[in-house]
Every structure is written in structure tokens, then in C-alpha cells.
């Protein structure tokens, strides 16, 4: 494997008495699409700005391409940023905006013109060069900001919530375009977002942050299937939590008695954070099944009452109150041909398996 493009070691950041980052350690691989995901105020933007050079670190170090970034200001770092507000210079045309960084590098004029044209083509704005930048739409400004940064061929492109100002349809389109663009240019992208769906669909790897710390750094699949704790599990997708009593079983397994579901033997790798008295059982909605019809069978069965039904066309979401549990669990079912949709107050048989249970602290 190649060396990481960015190495963050032991980063603390203080604003006066307030600590925004606590001992952040991470390695970002060359050429990957990396996301910093977390609720607002978790320190993800602060971390991005320390990489860009807009914020000093209080302790620890930032290395980019093997070079320490200590005392290297933002204008001499091999990173470029796409700002949340896009920060397009309103008094310049689109082409002047894109040429801005090249002019700062004192590139010859005719070469600038070629580079600008290439960059605009890359983001789908061919022929827009002479437009006034303030007359562009939100999505177009976004592309100008991308072109302006990419034309400098940075080692790392930093994106600070670039899609949050766009409407839903435009956002989805830009998500796939960003992904394609990243593959095409082969530059490492670091995306800051609070939208877990966006992070899951776009990233190679994701760092989930809470209160200035990285809670988990893993691939989207790993994050969804093996969240290390309850907090991460709650933030990524939907997770049902049930009380559980655990005893150590044979050969590194745990004997569990899960409220509403029943007994199960859970292997140790399904308890990524270890086991103690605070542990709860987590089950994803799609890991539970509503058994309909006499012949439907499952490895294990529980039962409950349907409290609410949310019909989405392709999917139906049920809130089911399992017998002996006071809060409902969410169960998602694909509406395949011939599968009946239950109604409120129906009794439901719920199928589940031990392999879908996580023990989380």
C-alpha cells in the first residue's frame, strides 16, 4: 500500500477554554474519497480547516505527503478548498475566478487560458468563461468553485459541506458527479458533511466524529454493519436497541437473553466494543422480518403488535411493539410480489437471527 497522503497525529485544538478537538489521529490514503461525518459542532469543519491551514493546531501535527505542515500557511499548502458558500469572487467573470490561483503562480497568460478551458470542461461549464459569476445558479457556482480549486492540481481537495445549500434533486446529481470527478482526476478528496446518507454513498472511508473526537474510522459497509458503539450506530442509519442480559458462553461466545426477542448465542466479533453491564442489543430494521403466511419460517421467532405502518411503495416500515418491551422496534420489509402489507393492531410474527444482533456499549 502507498503511503498516506495525510497523517494527523495527536491533534488538540483549543479556542480559549473550549476544546474543539481531542487527540485526533487519522491517516488518509492517497487517492481516496474520505468523509468527515458528524452532527454540527462535532469539530469536523475545524479539523478540515486545520488541514487547510486556516487554523493552527494547539498540539499534535498535520503531515501532508510526508511533509510537516507546521508553520506552513494555507497559501503554501498543497491543498485547495471548496467553501460552503462557494466563495466565488463576485467582481470577476467565471474564467477570472478559475484563473485566480494560476495568476498567483505567475503562469504565462496563454497557458492559463488553456488550463482554465480544460478545467471548465471538466466540470461541465464549457463556454461559460465570460459569464458574470454572480449571475450563476447555485449548482453552477459550485462547479466554478470546483474548477477553481482543481485547476491548481492540489494533492488534496477539501470540501466543506459543499452540497448543503443545494436542493434535493441538485444535491443527488452533484453527489454522483463529484464521485465521478474524483475518480477522473485521481485527487484525494476530503468531504465534510452532516448527512450520513451522503457520506455512505460517496466515500471510500468515513471518520465519524462526536464532540471533537473520532468515534470510528472505517469503510461505509464496516460502519453500518459493525458500528463500534451505540453512538455511531444511532448516527449511521436506523438501529433498534433492546435490553439484553449477557453471560460469557463457550469458545468466546456470549449467551444472551434479549428482551422481546429471546435467547441467542452471539459470537465475540459481534460485540466490537467488548461487553459489560451497560451493553445493549442492536438490530437493524432490515435484519428483522415480518413473517406472513402459515408457511413462513425463520431461525428464531418472536411476536408483537403492529403499532404503525409507513408505506413507501417499494418498502414498508413497521413500528412493532414486541411482547414484553415498551418501546416499538422498526422493521423494514421489501414489498415483493404477493407479500401482504399488515395493518395497525395486527398481531405479527417477527423472524430474526443471532447473526444480525450486535452487542453495543
Amino acid at each position, binding site marked *: 500500500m502507498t503511503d498516506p497522503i495525510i497523517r494527523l497525529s495527536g491533534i488538540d485544538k483549543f479556542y480559549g477554554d473550549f476544546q474543539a478537538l481531542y487527540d485526533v489521529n487519522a491517516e488518509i490514503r492517497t487517492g481516496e474519497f474520505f468523509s468527515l461525518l458528524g452532527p454540527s459542532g462535532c469539530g469536523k469543519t475545524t479539523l478540515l480547516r486545520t488541514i487547510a491551514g486556516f487554523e493552527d493546531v494547539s498540539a499534535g501535527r498535520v503531515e501532508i505527503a510526508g511533509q510537516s505542515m507546521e508553520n506552513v500557511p494555507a497559501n503554501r499548502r498543497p491543498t*485547495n478548498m471548496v467553501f460552503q458558500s462557494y466563495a466565488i469572487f463576485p467582481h470577476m467573470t467565471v474564467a477570472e475566478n478559475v484563473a485566480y490561483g494560476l495568476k498567483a503562480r505567475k503562469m504565462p497568460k496563454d497557458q492559463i487560458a488553456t488550463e482554465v478551458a480544460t478545467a471548465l470542461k471538466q466540470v461541465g461549464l464549457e463556454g461559460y468563461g465570460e459569464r458574470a459569476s454572480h449571475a450563476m445558479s447555485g449548482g453552477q457556482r459550485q462547479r466554478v468553485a470546483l474548477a477553481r480549486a482543481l485547476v491548481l492540481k492540489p494533492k488534496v481537495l477539501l470540501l466543506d459541506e459543499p452540497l448543503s445549500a443545494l436542493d434535493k434533486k441538485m444535491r443527488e446529481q452533484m453527489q454522483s458527479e463529484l464521485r465521478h470527478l474524483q475518480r477522473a482526476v485521481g485527487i484525494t478528496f476530503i468531504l465534510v458533511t452532516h448527512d450520513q446518507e451522503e457520506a455512505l454513498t460517496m466515500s471510500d472511508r468515513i471518520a465519524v466524529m462526536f464532540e471533537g473526537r473520532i468515534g470510528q474510522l472505517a469503510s461505509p459497509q464496516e460502519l453500518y454493519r459493525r458500528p463500534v458503539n451505540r453512538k455511531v450506530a444511532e448516527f449511521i442509519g436506523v438501529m433498534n436497541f433492546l435490553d439484553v442480559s449477557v453471560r460469557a458462553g463457550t469458545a468466546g461466545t456470549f449467551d444472551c437473553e434479549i428482551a422481546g426477542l429471546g435467547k441467542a448465542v452471539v459470537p465475540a466479533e459481534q460485540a466490537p466494543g467488548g461487553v459489560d453491564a451497560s451493553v445493549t442489543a442492536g438490530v437493524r430494521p432490515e435484519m428483522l422480518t415480518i413473517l406472513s403466511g402459515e408457511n413462513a419460517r425463520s431461525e428464531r421467532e418472536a411476536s408483537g403488535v403492529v403499532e404503525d405502518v409507513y408505506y413507501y411503495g417499494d418498502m414498508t416500515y413497521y413500528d412493532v411493539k414486541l411482547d414484553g418491551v415498551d418501546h416499538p422496534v422498526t422493521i423494514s420489509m421489501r414489498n415483493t410480489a404477493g407479500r401482504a402489507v399488515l395493518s395497525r393492531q395486527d398481531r405479527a410474527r417477527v423472524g430474526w437471527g443471532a447473526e444480525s444482533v450486535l452487542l453495543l456499549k
Partner: protein
Amino acid sequence: MKSGKWFKLYIAVFLVFLYAPALLLPVFAFNDSSIVSFPLKGFTLNWFNVLWETEALHEATKNSLLIAVSTAIISTSLGILAARASSRYKFRGQKAVMGFIMIPLVLPEIIVGVSLLVVIVQMGFDLSLWTIVLGHVLICTPFCVAILSSAFLNLDQSLEEASFDLGQTKLATFWLVTMPLVLPGVVSSMLISFTISLDEFIIAFFLAGTEPTLPVYIWGQLRFPQKLPSLMALGTILLILSLTLLATAEYFRRRSARKTGIEDAGGFL
């Protein structure tokens, strides 16, 4: 709609009261009589000729222009520094400092004039045009800070960060990004401080040495009734000049606002 009629009448009376005296200036400036009163006697350009031939008036005008231009440049420069600092950085004692900068706005000019006179004389400096500039900068700076603060606050901070991020130095960023975007505010600031300085009387009266400014000169001439019509002519010239100035500045402000798509960049009209 009876109340609507009364409201229109009120507006009409209000406007007449506000502008009629100023409109009388040109009327009497062209009136062929040394007594300023109705009925009018006939058309003449004589009063403008008198202005042309009065050397002392030319000196006073030159003094006033020199003072007004210097004041506009100095107080706007100071205003840029203060407005930029207060809108970008948080520092200890910020509110107090900004408060002290703004106080001359409400301080009676007579107090500013007297106290400056005492200090300058005590320190052993001679009164000159530059002591007047000093006083005018003091009273104009708060206006400049107020106008420029709104210009700087309307400027998205990430624009400057983007310029720095794209490889420019902080100084180049200021000239290439910050200044062009706050320029309408800078023009407004220069214009208003120029205007304030040009017609300021009290401070100029106290701090003037042997060289009077235009308002001080006019005040001196009011003792002689036969000079009154020529002062009317002078007033007419000043009126046209300042209207032209304002219109030009506003034209440029709107043009640049249209060019950048920024709605309010610190204009005051």
C-alpha cells in the same frame, strides 16, 4: 381618501420648507440689485464677475479644497483600518475602543474646537491648515467607520480565505479581493467626509491661523450687505457642485453594485 389628501399636503409643505431657501439662492444670484428682496429687478451675471475678481475668495476656496481632500483621504484610511479590525477580529476592549472612535459623532463641535485649540497652543504648535485637518479628521472618522463597517460586514469572510487558499498573499488578497468589493463604501466614505469638511465652520473658525476656509470667509463677508448678492452666487455654485458630486458618486456606486451583484455595499443614498 381624505386623510390621504392631508398627507400629500403635509409632504408638499415639508418639501417646500426644506428646499425653498436653497432654491432662492440662484434666484437672487442672477438678480440685478444689491438688495436681496422681492420684487426682482432684472437678469445679471455681475455677481459671478465679482466672485471671479475677489482674490481672497480664491485663496479661501483653495484652502477649503485642500483641507477637504486631505480630510477625506486621511479619515477614510483610518476608517478602513478600524472597520476592518472590528469586523474581522475579536480583541480585548473592542467595544470600548469602537465606542471612543464613535464619540465625536455626538460631541458638540464647539467643545472639540475649544479643546483642540487649547491643546495645540499649549503644545506650542502654530495654527495652520493642518490643525484644521486634524480637527476635521476627528469628526469625520466616525462617519467613515460607520459606512465602512457595513461594507466590511457585508463581505463574506470566506472570499478572503479562498484567495489565500488559492495561493495569494494576504496583502495581494486585500488589493485583489477585499478592496474592489468594499470600493463603493470607500467612495461613499470619501464623499461624506469631503462634504462634512468642506462646510464645517466651528472647528475651522477656532483652529484657523491666518488662512480662512470658505465658510469662515463667507461668515466674515456677511458683515457687508453689499456683498450679499455675490455670496448668493457663490452659494449657487456650491449647490450645483455638490449635487453633481453626489449624482456622480451614486452613479458609480450603482454601476459597481450591478457589476458584482451585491445589493448593499455601504452606499448612503
